[in-house]
């Protein structure tokens, strides 16, 4: 798969995001798949931040550590990012008279780098333009290096200033100036892109947070309450930006406890409501999770992960919240934990999460992470037909409401533990959503028999929930495969990797690499993490020469859940816990190392054992 990467670096607030966003949109409209990745420190202005675009004419959803073009908006980029350039790469900078140190001069020579000084201040002076327009000049020059049509850029930038004629003209002059710049030493330089695929032109450029917000509205969410915490804040912002169109009630709460309680009250009343938070914010919500279990109140919580403990790395990514989601909060109860993986299922899983919550009258925790929340995806427009709104055993028909008894609400003998539910304000027998242990009408009851029956009712839901969850997604050699086909037949698997969340897309790109294309490498991707369905994994594991766990946490938390659920222990793990996502080239080399080992040790037994047989 051909891939090109461009990286804009500079201080936060300098405009790297706006350059990145315009180029991404322009390239997407030209027919390229773009994947955008941001790194930035937790501050508003200053620091060293980056916006990287990885571009291909095929589906691409990962970031490389090496780049073809580095655009440095200040000298820190020249100091810090030179090592990242590929052979023949381009360094575009705006620092007058910059003298590279010796080791960089060596690097420039060795890698045949093209260094271009872009005299942005001279150009601004000549045009009589303010410093804010330096980004337009730079964007236009990068655009010319990419051999893209100047008019496409003009229409993109022009759309922003349609009503401000003077500004529009100045912007257009900047585009002409930047686009026509030729470095006197380097001459005309261009970055060769593969031929475009016009199919991408009609795609969306969307972050995971935007995708999730659209999915939530699609799923019928009518109230959103949240407390700002990266990386959940972009979802709150996006829902709020849309509020005048969607008419959704948006409440920025005084804390996470409040947000969780408001959402729970709203769900109890019968609407669909959502909240999102991260790490320690979810700790504050966890008492409400326990409450909702006891009152059997369907709720959906988004847990957007970042590295911890405590406030950790606020603006970086992690998958360290899996065990928090599956295990936090008082008491034993049934819950469902699912994870989004990219902009596609960030949308698709929102109706699913609410349906599961209402079908089983449980809390569903939807995991995402900073990588998904803020990465920029090239996304096919969403299917608006296939999702259903399934409200489970909710009774709304006035005729049926008449026949309800209070004891129907928490009937311990209800099939699968899921009893009838009806909403406050319905002309029917009433009940108490009781946080103390209670009997079928919600009256407090502490007897031994009742306690056992109600515990069994709530925990019985686990079995039905688990049985109904879809199998994990299997792909072999980068192509989606039917898990069932590979369970009974389908031959030996060279390497079986298991992962979840944002790891999945990077692994897909790795399997599609030229190096690994066509190899019998299987990737089993878990979207539904708790309850954990392991029957497919257990069979596939037996067919695999080697098995590896791929996670962005220290302990291999999915591996722990797998071992807990079925005894399968996976000693080989590719783990990352430095706040960065898996990078394409880095994960590729980790996988290739294992493939090489697999070929060498053909005769050896697989390197995994069942816990119960391990010594």
């Amino acid at each position, binding site marked *: 798969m051909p891939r090109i990467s461009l990286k804009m670096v500079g201080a936060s607030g300098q405009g790297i995001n706006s350059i990145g966003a315009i180029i991404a949109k322009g390239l997407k409209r030209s027919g390229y798949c773009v994947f955008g990745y941001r790194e930035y420190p937790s501050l508003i202005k200053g620091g060293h931040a980056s916006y990287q675009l990885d571009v291909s004419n095929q589906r691409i959803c990962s970031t490389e550590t090496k780049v073809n073009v580095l655009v440095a908006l200040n000298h820190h980029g020249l100091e810090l990012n030179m090592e990242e350039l590929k052979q023949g790469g381009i360094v575009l900078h705006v620092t007058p008279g910059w003298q590279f140190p010796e080791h960089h001069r060596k690097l420039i020579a060795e890698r045949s780098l093209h260094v271009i000084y872009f005299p942005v201040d001279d150009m601004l002076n000549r045009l009589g333009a303010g410093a804010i327009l330096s980004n337009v000049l730079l964007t236009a020059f990068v655009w010319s290096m990419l051999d893209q049509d100047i008019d496409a850029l003009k229409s993109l930038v022009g759309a922003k200033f349609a009503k401000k004629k003077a500004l529009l003209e100045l912007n257009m002059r900047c585009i002409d100036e930047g686009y026509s710049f030729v470095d006197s030493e380097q001459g005309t330089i261009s970055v060769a892109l593969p031929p475009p695929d016009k199919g991408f032109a009609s795609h969306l450029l969307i972050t995971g947070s935007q995708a999730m917000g659209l999915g939530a509205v699609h799923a019928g969410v009518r*109230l959103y309450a949240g407390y700002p915490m990266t990386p959940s804040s972009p979802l709150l912002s996006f829902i709020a930006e849309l*509020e005048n169109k969607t008419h959704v009630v948006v409440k920025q709460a005084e804390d996470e406890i409040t947000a969780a309680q408001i959402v729970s009250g709203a769900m109890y009343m019968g609407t669909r409501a959502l909240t999102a938070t991260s790490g320690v914010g979810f700790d504050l919500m966890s008492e409400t999770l326990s409450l909702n279990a006891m009152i059997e109140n369907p709720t959906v919580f988004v847990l957007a992960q970042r590295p911890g403990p405590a406030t950790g790395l606020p603006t970086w990514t992690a998958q360290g919240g899996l065990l928090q989601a599956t295990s936090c909060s008082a008491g034993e109860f049934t819950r469902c934990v699912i994870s989004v993986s990219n902009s596609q299922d960030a949308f698709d899983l929102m109706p699913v999460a609410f349906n599961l919550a209402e079908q089983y009258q449980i809390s569903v925790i939807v995991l995402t992470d900073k990588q998904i929340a803020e990465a920029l995806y090239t996304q096919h427009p969403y299917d608006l037909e296939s999702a259903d709104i399934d409200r489970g055993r909710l009774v709304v028909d006035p005729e049926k409401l008449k026949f309800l008894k209070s004891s129907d609400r928490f009937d311990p003998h209800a099939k699968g533990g899921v009893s009838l539910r009806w909403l406050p304000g319905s002309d029917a027998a009433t009940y108490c959503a009781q946080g103390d242990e209670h009997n079928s009408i919600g009256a407090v009851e502490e007897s031994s028999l009742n306690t056992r029956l109600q515990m069994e009712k709530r925990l019985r839901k686990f079995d039905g929930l688990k049985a109904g969850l879809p199998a994990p997604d299997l792909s072999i050699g980068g192509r989606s495969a039917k898990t069932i086909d590979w369970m009974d037949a389908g031959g030996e698997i060279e390497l079986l990797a298991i992962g979840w969340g944002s790891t999945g897309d990077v692994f897909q790109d790795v399997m599609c690499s030229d190096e690994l294309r066509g190899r019998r490498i299987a990737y089993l991707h878990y979207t539904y993490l708790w309850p954990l369905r392991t029957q497919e994994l257990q069979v596939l594991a037996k067919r695999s020469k080697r098995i590896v766990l791929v996670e962005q946490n220290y302990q291999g938390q999915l591996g722990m859940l797998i071992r807990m659920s079925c005894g399968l222990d996976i000693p080989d793990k590719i783990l990352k816990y430095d706040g960065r996502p898996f990078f394409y080239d880095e994960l590729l080399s980790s996988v290739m190392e294992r493939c090489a080992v697999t070929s060498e040790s053909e005769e050896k037994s697989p390197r995994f054992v069942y816990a119960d047989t391990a010594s």
Partner: protein
Amino acid sequence: MNIALQTRSPALSEYYSETKCIWCDGCGNYGIWTAVKYALVELNLHPWQVCLCYDVGCHGNGSDKIEGYRFHGLHGRVIPFAAGAKLANMKVPVIAFGGDGATFSEGIGHLIHGLRSNYPITFVLHNNANYGLTTGQASSLTPQGQPMNTSPNGIPEHTLASMDLIFSLNPTFVARGFSGDIKLMTRILKAAIQHRGFAFVDMLQACPTYNHFATHEYLLDKYFDANAEGHDPSNLQQAKAFATRVQDRIACGILYQREDIPDFYNRLAPRQGLETTCVEEVRKYDVSEYWKELV
């Protein structure tokens, strides 16, 4: 409040519960519980038309001693839960109940923001000046120096000036009742439920087991109906004075009310002009219009 006209008036018996009361003899909860039922009946509300949300404490043990759609939650959290319930369905009157322990300690942030937000709910403070259900510890409303369980030498902290706090938050409705006067409490509760914003109702309540300083007799002796003595609830200065000065006499009744401030929901620009509730709006939405800018 937005209550549909009913052809059939509710009877008090509709609120009867099979669950037996378990409060101590002489507990103020009996009086408040009775007044709540009277107020709902007199407002022509059937149990299925109301949502009653209880915090944790002795009062919360009343959640299953009355009919209605009820909720009994976690300590200190009743206000945001009730607010969420109300915002989801503005057609259902929502009444939240909480004790002084939960409300002025663990949940004090929720109280402050509830008042500040002016949620369209009624909040009834069961104020017995101690933590009853956990066996008589001091609350932040217990008088300083009063020996209590876990503070045998008396509590070292200042007593929280609850009414000064309430009035610092620009409330739109403040009332005070006394658990020994059911008629007065009923009048207050009816006005509170009909109030368009956050109605704060402080119910002074006897706790015969743990409160030996503000007993039923003490309160009976000191309380009076300020409205009966001519207090005008629109008089803010007088209301504050009545609310905070309780040494000699304790003013009860509707101390303060203003109706000219919109409640939280009515301040939400996206909800202007909508007749439907969030509960009624749950369906699948076509969101393609919202992604146009992303192409």
